[in-house]
């Protein structure tokens, strides 16, 4: 087997029932249901090697979570072939289930009324982790996540961030080789997001675990994943290096200018594309290769109060990809991955 995770033309269709709004609609749906097929995932293929960290990007309902669920053996593929660690996930063999973990920011496995440690002990027994190993693993997770006093507090008394730390620990006690993380930082404040992110990076470094991550927070993906897979409406839009995508979609830097007097826009246009201009500020898109030259020339010719270079916002780039404004991405996918 060449790759740790192989997905070949995976499709997953759901049947959902539809309901018109209001009482009449509900009554009608109670007696005669109308069904509709939703193509959650449609012909998606990719391979992932051991130790890679891959970010799944896509708007809500794009099929990211469905793909993760197929990989975890929760859902039967409608068609296509999936292979992880040499196993077919939906057969749910114990030897496979012992080697990966699934963390979902929106769902929790910790027992609500008990301290996290009780869930840990149950998981230890379920995964048959030897006592000595368990102590060592728990110690490591404790060091990395600073669980300390949390372990003895009832889960219902923990804050969202504290709970997420414990969820991660509970999910990693059997030292899985593959981590499926679905929105692990959802709802957390910026500091806690960064903590979780650092933890995931460190865990990957130490144990060479493969990580697939979905997140709404671009910062998570930017910080962790060199490679991204963009999915929208069930279809794969891009698979490859994150930086390469940015350079491809946004081959410019963003130059923010501040003036003392309203500038001459026509004069500015010779240095780059004027993306925005109002009153005393302007934003220019300057080709990446000439960014520094252009800035120097601009400074010598136009009176500027303040000047600032920025990378284009990743959110904007991804939005462009989703909006279908970027052609020929898929044909590049293979090349991008090879580079």
């Amino acid at each position, binding site marked *: 087997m060449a790759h740790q995770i192989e997905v070949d033309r995976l499709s997953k269709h759901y049947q959902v029932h539809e309901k018109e709004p209001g009482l009449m609609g509900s009554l009608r749906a109670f007696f005669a249901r109308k069904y509709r097929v939703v193509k959650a995932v449609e012909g998606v293929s990719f391979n992932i090697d051991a130790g890679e960290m891959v970010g799944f990007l896509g708007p809500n309902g794009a099929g990211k979570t469905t793909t993760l669920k197929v990989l975890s053996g929760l859902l039967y593929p409608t068609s296509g072939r999936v292979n992880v660690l040499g196993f077919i996930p939906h057969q749910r063999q114990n030897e496979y289930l012992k080697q990966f973990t699934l963390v979902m920011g*929106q769902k929790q496995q910790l027992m609500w009324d*008990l301290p996290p440690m009780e869930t840990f002990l*149950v998981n230890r*027994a379920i995964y048959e982790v030897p006592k000595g190993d368990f102590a060592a693993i728990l110690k490591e997770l404790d060091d990395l996540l600073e669980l300390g006093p949390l372990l003895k507090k*009832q889960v219902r008394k923990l804050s969202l961030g504290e709970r997420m730390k414990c969820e991660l620990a509970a999910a990693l006690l059997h030292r899985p080789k593959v981590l499926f993380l679905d929105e692990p930082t959802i709802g957390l404040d910026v500091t806690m997001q960064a903590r979780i992110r650092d933890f995931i990076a460190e865990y990957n470094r130490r144990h060479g675990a493969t990580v697939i991550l979905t997140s709404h927070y671009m910062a998570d993906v930017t910080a962790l994943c060199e490679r991204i897979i963009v999915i929208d409406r069930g279809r794969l839009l891009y698979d490859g290096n994150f930086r390469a995508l940015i350079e491809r979609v946004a081959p410019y830097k963003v130059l923010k200018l501040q003036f003392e007097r309203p500038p001459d826009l026509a004069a500015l246009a010779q240095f780059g594309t004027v993306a925005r201009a109002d009153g005393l500020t302007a934003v220019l898109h300057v080709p990446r290769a000439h960014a520094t030259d252009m800035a120097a020339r601009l400074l010598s010719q136009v009176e500027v109060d303040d000047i600032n270079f920025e990378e284009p916002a990743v959110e904007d780039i991804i939005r462009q990809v989703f909006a279908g404004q970027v052609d020929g991405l898929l044909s590049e996918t293979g090349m991008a991955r090879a580079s």
Partner: protein
Amino acid sequence: MRYARLFGLFLKASFLVELEYRANFAARAMVSVFWAGVTLVGAGVFYSHTDTVGGWTFDEALVIIGLFTFMGGVIQTFLQPNVQRIIEMIRLGTLDFVLTKPVNSQFMASLRYSQMFSIVDMLLGVAIVVWALFRLRYAPDLLTLAQFALMLVMAILIVYSIWMVIATLAFWLVKVNNMAELFNSVYDTGRFPVTTFQGLIRLALTFVVPIAFITTFPAQSLLGWLDATTLLAAVAMGVGLFTASALFWRRAVRSYSSAGS
């Protein structure tokens, strides 16, 4: 062996949860005593008008009432809380965590959370049975006890399977709480000997929703009235229903749609 240890661990965790809520425990104990009392007084009223009901004297019927209370305890302790939990997990999609664990998913889903308070009902049930035997001045011999034990195991398997089938329906129908209620109502007939009922109802309570196998037949076996046919039927019913429930569960897991994101 591994499963016995896991079950022990599940019980321990459930017990710890209950210890968190002491007041609830006291209330539950009172509810149990109250309902056992209601059943006993009800039977007393019945027998004040007649000597036998469906061929059972009051003291004999006490054995059924004891078993009814005991099995009710089994349902309240082990089946109902887990079935409710399964329904909820299917609705919210948290069954994901059960299905991704390297352990039999039906075992884990159906025995994870027990409501230990209701053990009170099981103890009350045993007490009523012992009291009944005492009043009858009857001590079953070893063979009878062994038969009774087998009948009891089959009774538990039958109730377990019925509850699991209801829970499994939730994979398609999502909310099946009312079906659980429906079973509880039918189960209420178990406090009377099945011979009290006539014709179709009696057939239904024997073969469709086999309440007879849960209280009446085990009581008969304890009293030493059981014939071999009923014993075999009970074993067939228990093993058959259990197998069916397990197959149904496996089929359902295939069509699990994992709600939420």
